[in-house]
């Protein structure tokens, strides 16, 4: 069975990509599966300079999901290029860099560092991380800003596909997707986490030091599916589905509503080989769904 998907100038072995922030730099999982079998790996969000991230506690388990407020702790883009990228199987698996910055200009500079890297297959722009004050959230919630940032990254991307990762914390996700398309994005990926909160009645304190954080996991899957459905109808560029995907069946659901590929995030914490298991399960699940290839499944939802 042909599991390949092609979109936005990328050719992936299969539509299963690991989501940023849930799979480290990929190498952390090399003991648990062959990284080359994944469709792609989106690495931990990168900033121009190293970032220490937020204070602890940073994560809380919630029913069917979790909240996180890590704050883009990362060693900086240069350390990634120098120390991590050479160790990744980038010839066999698409390595997608995830970019985090606080201004359009900084996004441009960051892109400049990665544009010339042969090992980077595409750039994913984080305009929606809700964790850092005065950070991504502002971009992601304003279509004009989304377009501006997309243009800035696209200008300096050296021909690499640019994927804009959208926040669900908006009134009209279609509008945001369209803004990315107008800015020249080659694809959009969605959804990033939903802004949430958890508190402790005994200590009367928030469970995250950052007070609020991003909700992810199966709890958000219906919201994600709806957003992917709406975004797919709003734009002509490919859509990558993200949000609570933990099985091959989930992956097919997102493709059915219009996604070209999917990202597996919080499910990587169920067990460290989960993304590999989803790849293994694809052929069987496709047979069950009487689906011969992803191209014919994509967007084939029957709405009467």
């Amino acid at each position, binding site marked *: 069975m042909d599991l390949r998907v092609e979109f936005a100038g990328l050719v992936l072995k299969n539509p299963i990509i690991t989501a940023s922030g849930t799979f480290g730099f990929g190498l*952390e999982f090399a003991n*648990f599966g062959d990284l080359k079998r994944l469709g792609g790996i989106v690495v*931990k969000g990168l900033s121009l300079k190293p970032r220490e991230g937020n204070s*602890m506690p940073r994560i809380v388990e919630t029913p069917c999901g979790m909240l996180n407020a890590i704050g883009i*702790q990362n060693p900086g883009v240069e350390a990634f290029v120098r120390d991590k990228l050479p160790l990744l199987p980038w010839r066999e698996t698409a390595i997608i860099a995830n970019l985090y910055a606080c201004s359009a200009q900084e996004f441009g500079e960051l892109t400049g560092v990665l544009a010339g890297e042969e090992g980077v297959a595409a750039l994913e722009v984080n305009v929606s991380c809700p964790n850092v004050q005065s950070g991504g959230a502002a971009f992601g919630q304003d279509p004009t800003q989304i377009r501006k940032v997309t243009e800035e990254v696209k200008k300096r991307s050296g021909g690499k596909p640019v994927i804009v990762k959208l926040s669900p914390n908006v009134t009209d996700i279609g509008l945001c997707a369209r803004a990315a398309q107008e800015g020249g994005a080659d694809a959009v990926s969605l959804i990033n986490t939903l802004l949430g909160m958890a508190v402790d009645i005994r200590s009367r304190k928030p469970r995250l030091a950052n007070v609020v954080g991003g909700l992810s*996991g199966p709890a958000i899957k219906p919201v994600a599916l709806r957003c992917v459905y709406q975004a797919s109808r709003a734009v002509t560029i490919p859509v990558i589905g993200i949000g609570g995907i933990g099985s091959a069946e989930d992956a097919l659901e997102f493709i059915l509503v219009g996604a070209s590929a999917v990202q597996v995030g919080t499910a990587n914490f*169920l067990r*460290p080989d989960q993304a590999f298991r989803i790849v293994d399960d694809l052929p069987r699940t496709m047979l069950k769904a009487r689906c011969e290839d992803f191209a014919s499944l994509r967007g084939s939802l029957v709405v009467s």
Partner: protein
Amino acid sequence: MVRNCREVKVRELRFLGAWDQPSDFVELTLENPGWDGYRPGQFAMLRPKHWGLELSWGRPFSISRADETSVTFFFQVVGRGTERLARLKPDDEVIIWGPLGNGFSAPPETPTLLLAGGMGIAPFRGYIEKHPTPEFLRLVFAHRAGLDSYPFQQLVGSVRAETVHEKSPDDLPMIIERLQDEVRGAHGGIVLACGPLPFLKTIQQAAREHQVRAELSLERSMACGVGACLGCVCKNGQDKHVQVCAHGPVFKSDDVHF
């Protein structure tokens, strides 16, 4: 050393403590998932296979001991995960990934003081078993629940061991003083500690004051256990965030900033 993720069967689950009282203290033995060894102080993530999606994470536990056929953990029921784990039955399947983290130093022929607080005794069982020169080890165990709630008896006989019982909060100053004295007395050797945060802080402070080499094993909630999610960080000696799962859980005492 092999590090893997496998589904293995529960061999035995038993509650420790007085026979006529309900117990929160659990000893869980699983089939060995094909490890070729481990370093005492390392941990593993456990997730019963039948767990649905309600709980998103596995649970990290210090490896108490392991041999060619089995791996044993000790835990106390404290929340949603451990409550469910305590209901496991023989032959239930558990997903286990490990061994994870770094482990304690085990310098041979070096006077080594093991300081355990409560469930912090867990890693020392395997440590004592595997140590090349156990006659150089001494264990001081501070505990709150009855002694038979912990895997303590198994250690007696193989190593010099003493206990300190915290019967009420009034005993705390005495325990702190005892720990300080013990650390001071360990000068020239090494102190290894595992226990609750205030316990570790006391030991760190005493080690610094008396210039005693010490290693502390930290406890954290974890999502991935492998260094990816960055949810379990502590501050190191340079005040930088490092993952407890990947850079620890054992840290040189000077290398943790509480």
